[in-house]
């Protein structure tokens, strides 16, 4: 059975990792290849640029127990193009997806849909005679809630980004990490205390 946090994120063995990688051709392929080869199951994956030129940031979610999570971390740490990797599953974090949902809605029912959109703190971004497109940002649980609410109207299409995540509080995941290793054998940087809620 899957449980969810108040932010709607599934918790059963779902691990969230943040990695900084060099923005070079084939890096995504290398990481995807590692996951395939080691039989790790990717739930969500997102790559995007950062404020630092030449460095991309990846967020990925994997179902793994604690032991496997450590090996995933260690295997990614070994990759030449991976600048840093951190498992942020145990810290306070913000986890978001963005989703666009195009739903069948005739003029007379638009208000109904807009009310739902309001409840979910989503927003309407496009309207045509017979459809409305809604944009929602949030954790998976919240998005799923809106999808369920809109389903009776008839969903024409929907699209989601991969999940992005960031730890709360003052400290960030360092793009470049120092040589440290704990007795647990995992490679990564020192653990931070949970960040404050902001």
């Amino acid at each position: 059975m899957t449980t969810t946090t108040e932010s709607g994120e599934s918790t059963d063995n779902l691990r969230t990792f943040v990695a900084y990688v060099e923005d070079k051709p084939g890096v995504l392929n290398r990481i995807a290849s590692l996951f395939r080869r080691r039989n790790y199951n990717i739930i969500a994956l997102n790559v995007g640029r950062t404020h630092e030129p030449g460095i991309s940031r990846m967020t990925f979610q994997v179902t793994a127990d604690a032991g496997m999570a450590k090996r995933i971390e260690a295997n990614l740490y070994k990759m030449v193009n991976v600048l840093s990797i951190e498992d942020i599953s145990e810290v306070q974090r913000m986890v978001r997806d963005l989703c666009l949902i195009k739903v069948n809605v005739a003029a007379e029912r638009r208000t109904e849909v807009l009310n739902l959109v309001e409840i979910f703190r989503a927003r309407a971004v496009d309207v045509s005679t017979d459809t409305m497109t809604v944009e929602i940002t949030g954790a998976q649980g919240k998005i799923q809630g809106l999808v369920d609410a809109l389903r009776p109207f008839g969903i024409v299409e929907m699209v989601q980004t991969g999940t992005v995540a960031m730890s709360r509080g003052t400290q960030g995941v360092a793009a470049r990490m120092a040589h440290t290793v704990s007795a647990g054998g995992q490679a990564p940087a020192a653990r931070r205390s949970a960040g404050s809620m902001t």
Partner: protein
Amino acid sequence: MPKAESSTDPNSTGPQQIPGSEIIWDTLVNLGVETVFGYPGGAIMPAYDSMVKFPIHHVLVRHEQGASHMADGFARVAGKVGVCVATSGPGATNLVTGIANAMLDGIPMVAITGQVNSALIGSDAFQETDITGVTLPITKHNVVVDRPEDISAAIKEAFHIASSGRPGPVLVDITKDAQQARCEYEFDPRPVELPGYRPEYSTDSNDIARAAEMIAAAKRPIIFSGHGVVRSGSSEVLKELVDKTQIPVASTLLGLGGFPASHERALGMMGMHGESWVNKAVQQADLIIAIGMRFDDRVTGNLANYARQAKKIHIEQDPAEINKNVIVELPLVGDAKAILDQLLPIAKKGDIEGWLAHIDHMKGDDAVIDIKELPDNGKLYAAHVIHELWKKTDGRAIIVTDVGQHQMWETQYYHHDYPRRLVTSGGLGTMGFALPAAIGAQFGDRDAEVWVVAGDGGFQMTAAELSTIQQEKLPVKIAIINNGFLGMVRQWQEMFFEGRYVSTPMLSPDFVKLADAHGMDAFRATTLEEAADAIAKARAIDGPALIDFRVVQEDSVYPMVATGKDLDDMIRRPDGSTEGPAVADLSKQKHIKNPLIETGDDE
């Protein structure tokens, strides 16, 4: 190509303007490379054309698989990065088996491949293969280079990655236009800096102190000596640690020679074909100190019942190996030698006299039956051959094995006292490895006596390299353990497939004539006496020689832990072996179940 034309402009002034093809070799020479193993072809031809300007010895192989195995064999013996070179497409794909082999055994190798012109990449050009895509999961790293300016840095980085941390193969794919174009170049001797590559780990001294406490408290400790002991050069410090603590040492296949087989505390190899007393000791131990090994399934048997009484200390440089197969109490991540150097001064001998006596009891007084004491029954056993080879070479030769029964017999009958003297394909189990790897091994140590020990099956996979041996005038000696079967598969068919010998009987050419066709001296031996004689003759020859040992056909390697069985659940040599009455008679005479092959007390 406009790009190439503009940069090869004869009017350009800079005296350091050289083509990428020369940058390749200048960089390799600056990195200390003297020998490369390769095969030319279209996309790598500019590099070959430039090679003659540099002090590089190129060994022309007969198949690119040979080149990658040679680079591998060279690296294992010399402890340096082995280099192989091939052209694009089929040249590159032929390297693949050797690259995968180096990956699983952690061998430092750099493969340089030609690639089609950068403008043609992705167009399915002649001999175009996406070799970096193909080798992605079997290299430590790989890279495509399409500008001459990037060649030197890419090769330097490849050497650094291949040889540091847990070593492995790195492939550098260089487009033909990058080889042809010119640029300003001067070798940059500064160390490589890769922000995302940090393979060194420092170990917490508190953890090492804890290891010393666990060692002092243990009643039944055992050390596992793996490939990491050989690679990190830890043989001496390990010996000192064992002399101080008296802890018995079991070895993995690739660890053989890392700890001297003749040492009083050496137990021998553990695992699927390990000696019975070693596997029993593993199962009974209360502390395992595993050094530079990865708890491969061939070592552990059934994981659920593996060494359940033992706490485990895992000394390993790759954190991704920690808790992968076996959960350990204390991981020590870092260089084995650095950790053992710190452990040695604080390690103390525990109260283990009872344990040592127990192991001695398991071994029995006749732990290793000296085969030469047994009466000759007129048949030649592989064990005879390898034992004889060990005696004749005083245990000092470099033995390069193929994969199969002969490989396991080698581990049982050639006792390695020195590191880097056994070259064998462990993780991948690559048939066809021995002959080319031996060529590389000979280049790794030009003065060493190098012996190939191969089966008739594996030998034929890469037998074309016989002519490479002759072209290079190498004194490599070749022992073919010829039983007319793919022996290990046949053994499994006998044991697990009700004796259905599907596709394992093998017709071979006359190996003596084959050697003769290569202008190589060759002998055939069908008895123990002939075997001893042939080995002596081959050793006396100042050049290569081949011996076709016609051994008993349906012999099996014992003891054996079947796949999925517990480590101490071993199949023993049956009384009245399959190989006829002679053996059965012998066992009655000597009141031992296992007169020839099994070396341990069979209790």
